[in-house]
């Protein structure tokens, strides 16, 4: 029976001996006669050979195995070490080939070299290959549940570090730079591969697994005040203010300058105090909310024929860039350039030093994230017999349910590294053995399980239990309270509904939603509920005759109904949203009427 051959799902011919064909094809590909990007798959059920050369397939490199022996020999390794050959040479030699998902179905891949048998067709280059780049940065990852590895890599992506060395000349929005980044004591193979030492994103701390006054409940951590004062996890936060001179029809343009006092919407003189003559703030000025960064005026929004006749000069609008509510910092960098349309563009970078505070988020590399719950003066921190106060106290309840064994091993490894003065290899599947680390720790004069005698920092009493303490790589995450904290008593309202605005950026209110409203009713707190919803209350004059909204004449100080002559008009208090609702009903052709009744 002949086997059909498909190239990119299109039939191109048939062959009598399928295995022979496939073997020959693979042989040719390894010799370089066929492109190494083409993959071949045999589907037994359909008795068809499928060739794929299309783009978009995911393929991964594997070492070719022949007769139970890896094609990468000791000679290759030596040549690689001497840099005589590179990875691409191995592909050219047919020692390494890329398999796509389809061809992988026909392959038997050995995880490590020592399990190779005659049946195997390929060998993993490294067992680390089953994880991704960031996940492989988790030390001792093979001791963890996969979900934790995922959590660990997700957290690492949010870490603040040294993301680019040309940061002083970059214009990035919403980024942070860690002040004193360090290389982890416990590393993985990926650290050198990814040149981690050039852009590290954490710091090595002394971590004790210990609770303290309950301030590290629910994943919180306690940080030593002394450590923070010495610069732990300090970072700079950069924000951008960007303003351009837009052109409008009729030859009118924006103007970047210090606005005149005649300009509509002029702020106080004080608000413009940082601006230089060109209307742009000077570097290193310390700004606070409400201060103008870039002064700008725009032409009036609507040009009516009246304005053109009138006065000759129309009033310009103030449209400066102002430091937003709750923001602040130092002007770091000013850039004056042009945008795509050729208009003048001014970008000002603000810098703000962020010192760790209660509520800032931290994580280890094992998905053990948490928020600072308390900052303790270093004299109150528990200390070891040798007088070391830990930098961070981590709650022991975070360990059992999550089963992050790697977290514990890193602690032992980190301690060994710190004492022996060498980096520890924690590569997933290829790490240094836990037993060896314990032995080394013991030879360095410490208890082999990493525990130490601790003393209460306030009373000096010894703790009965031995406390697990060691060195660990900790990462500061980009979620900082100072960027999120928000409260409001009174503030801006929306134009349409006269209800408070929404969101931190607009200094909005915290909504008392429908379900919260229900709880007020359930408690019978009727008048309190009314008070809470009084944010948009208005007094509306209502005609008692027709039930329509009447008119208040401010000049004559009287109310009248435009439809009824000599009718009584009463002032009624209601939610502005309801008045709006009445108007909306009218707009859909329904006429609502209010029947007024004496309240008493």
């Amino acid at each position, binding site marked *: 029976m002949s086997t059909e051959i498909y190239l990119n799902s299109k039939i191109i011919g048939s062959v009598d001996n399928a295995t022979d064909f496939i073997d020959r094809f693979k042989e040719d590909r390894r010799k370089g006669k066929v492109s190494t990007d083409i993959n071949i798959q045999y589907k037994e059920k359909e008795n068809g050979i499928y060739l794929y050369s299309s783009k978009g397939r995911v393929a991964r490199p594997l070492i070719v195995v022949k007769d139970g022996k890896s094609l990468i020999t000791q000679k290759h390794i030596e040549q690689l070490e001497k840099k005589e050959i590179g990875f691409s040479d191995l592909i050219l030699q047919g020692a390494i080939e890329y398999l796509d998902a389809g061809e992988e179905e026909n392959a038997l891949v050995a995880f490590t070299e020592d399990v190779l048998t005659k049946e195997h067709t390929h060998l993993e280059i490294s067992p680390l290959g089953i994880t991704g780049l960031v996940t492989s940065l988790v030390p001792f990852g093979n001791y963890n549940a996969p979900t934790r590895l995922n959590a660990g890599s997700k957290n690492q992506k949010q870490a603040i570090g040294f993301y680019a060395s040309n940061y002083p000349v970059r214009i990035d929005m919403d980024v942070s730079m860690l002040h004193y980044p360090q290389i982890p004591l416990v590393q993985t193979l990926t650290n050198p591969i990814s040149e981690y030492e050039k852009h590290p994103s954490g710091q090595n701390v002394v971590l004790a697994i210990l609770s303290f006054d309950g301030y590290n409940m629910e994943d919180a951590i306690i940080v030593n005040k002394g450590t923070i004062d010495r610069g732990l996890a300090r970072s700079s936060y950069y924000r951008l203010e960007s303003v351009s001179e837009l052109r409008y029809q009729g030859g009118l343009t924006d103007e970047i300058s210090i606005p005149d006092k005649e300009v509509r919407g002029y702020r106080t003189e004080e608000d413009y105090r940082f601006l230089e003559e060109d209307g742009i703030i000077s570097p290193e000025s310390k700004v606070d909310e409400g201060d103008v960064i870039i002064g700008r005026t725009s032409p009036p929004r609507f040009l009516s024929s009246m304005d053109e006749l009138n006065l000759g000069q129309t009033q310009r609008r103030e449209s400066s860039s102002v430091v937003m509510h709750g923001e602040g910092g130092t002007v770091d960098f000013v850039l004056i350039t042009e945008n795509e349309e050729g208009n003048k563009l001014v970008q000002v970078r603000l810098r703000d030093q962020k010192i760790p505070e209660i509520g800032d988020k931290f994580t280890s590399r094992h998905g053990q994230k948490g928020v600072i719950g308390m900052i303790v003066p270093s004299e109150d921190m528990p200390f070891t017999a040798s007088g070391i106060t830990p930098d961070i106290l981590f709650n022991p309840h975070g360990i059992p349910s999550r089963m992050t064994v790697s977290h514990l091993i890193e602690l032992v490894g980190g301690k060994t590294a710190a004492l022996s003065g060498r980096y520890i290899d924690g590569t997933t599947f290829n790490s240094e053995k836990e037993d060896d680390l314990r032995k080394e720790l013991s030879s360095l004069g410490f208890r082999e399980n990493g525990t130490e005698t601790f003393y209460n920092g306030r009373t000096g009493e010894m703790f009965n239990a031995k406390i697990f303490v060691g060195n660990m790589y900790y990462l500061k995450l980009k979620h900082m309270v100072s960027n999120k904290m928000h409260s409001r008593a009174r503030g801006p309202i929306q134009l349409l509904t006269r209800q408070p605005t929404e969101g931190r950026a607009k200094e909005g209110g915290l909504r008392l939603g429908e379900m919260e409203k229900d709880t007020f009713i359930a408690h019978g707190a009727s008048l309190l509920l009314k008070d809470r*919803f009084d944010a948009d209350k208005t007094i509306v004059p209502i005609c008692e005759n027709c039930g329509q909204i009447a008119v208040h004449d401010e000049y004559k100080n009287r109310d009248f109904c435009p439809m009824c002559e000599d009718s009584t008009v009463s002032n009624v208090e209601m939610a502005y949203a309801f008045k709006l609702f009445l108007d909306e009903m009218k707009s*859909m052709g329904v006429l609502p009427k209010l029947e007024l009744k004496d309240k008493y």
Partner: protein
Amino acid sequence: MTSELIKKYENLLPKKIIGEAMELIPKGAKKADVEKIMKILVDEYNYALVDPGECVGLIAAESLGEPSTQMTLNTFHLAGVAEMNVTMGLPRIIEILDGRKTISTPMMEIYIKEEFRNEKKVRGIAEQIKERTLKEIISDISINLAEIQLEISLNEKKMKQFNVERTVVLKNIEKAVKTYEVKEKGEVIILKPKSKDEDLNILYLLREKLKNLYVTGIKGLKQVLPVKRDEEYLIITAGTNLKEVLSRDFTDTTRTVSNDSFEIADVLGIEAARQAIINEIYKVIEGQGLNIDIRHVMLVSDTMCTSGQIRGITRFGVVSEKPSVLARASFETPIKHIVNASLINERDELNSVIENVMLNQPVPTGTGLPKLGIKLD
């Protein structure tokens, strides 16, 4: 003597509590003691009563709503129960409260009278009441392409097992197909179209239809399952037919139930349906290991049944009967309600809660309920 003393409190306490007091207070108790007990009873009873102006409906809604948000997460863990697949959890609660006419898994629990209550008899009954269709008692049903007719040959063995008479089957077939001539030719039943121009396609459809023709048993009971519960044999069925089941002589009519509240309302009346709704909702809540006071459920069930027929808590059900336009408009499809209200010049008295929230006026519950009156002379 004691009972007379207790009887004095008949106006102050409900009958059930009076009855319990009668039972529990010893006959020879001292007069002072009895009065003391009764006084405490009255106080406790009054304390337990809901205060006027308490938002019982809203509290019931919150009490049911809060745990049901948690149930959405639990629903999938119960999937794949053996034997019978029953809708449980949130979908079931939604189904009951919406007042759906056709529920997704109709079920019955048939209790058996004592004289029939042993394993063998219960099994027999179960076999007997299960709905049998034509396909279960035939050996073959085929289309004769030459003659353009259907030929059905019955399986005598199966017929004997299910206790079906040949004549009954014939009658049923005749009733189902009026436009066909039903003849017997030896063992085979032949169906020939009366009009000449019937095409084969219709014959195919007829064959499929006839396969599901009801023959014997109780209509609607698609599956039967005799089970032993607390040393008692009963039959659980998939599919319901309360009316038929209750008319059989072996049924314990006092305990046999269906989970279809509409069926119960038809057969037993609205009061029974009210109780059925309470039971069904409570069964789900208990099944999820939650604890909701039954009085919340009772209130919901009362609301659904007060009109004399079951109305779901939807915009077509109880909500559509609210007197206030604004209240109806605040719950789904507002434009429809406003337009319809404008057509008939509807008036909103602003008597209830939600309208007053919309106007930002004090709602007439709790602190908003009492009014100050001034006597003018």
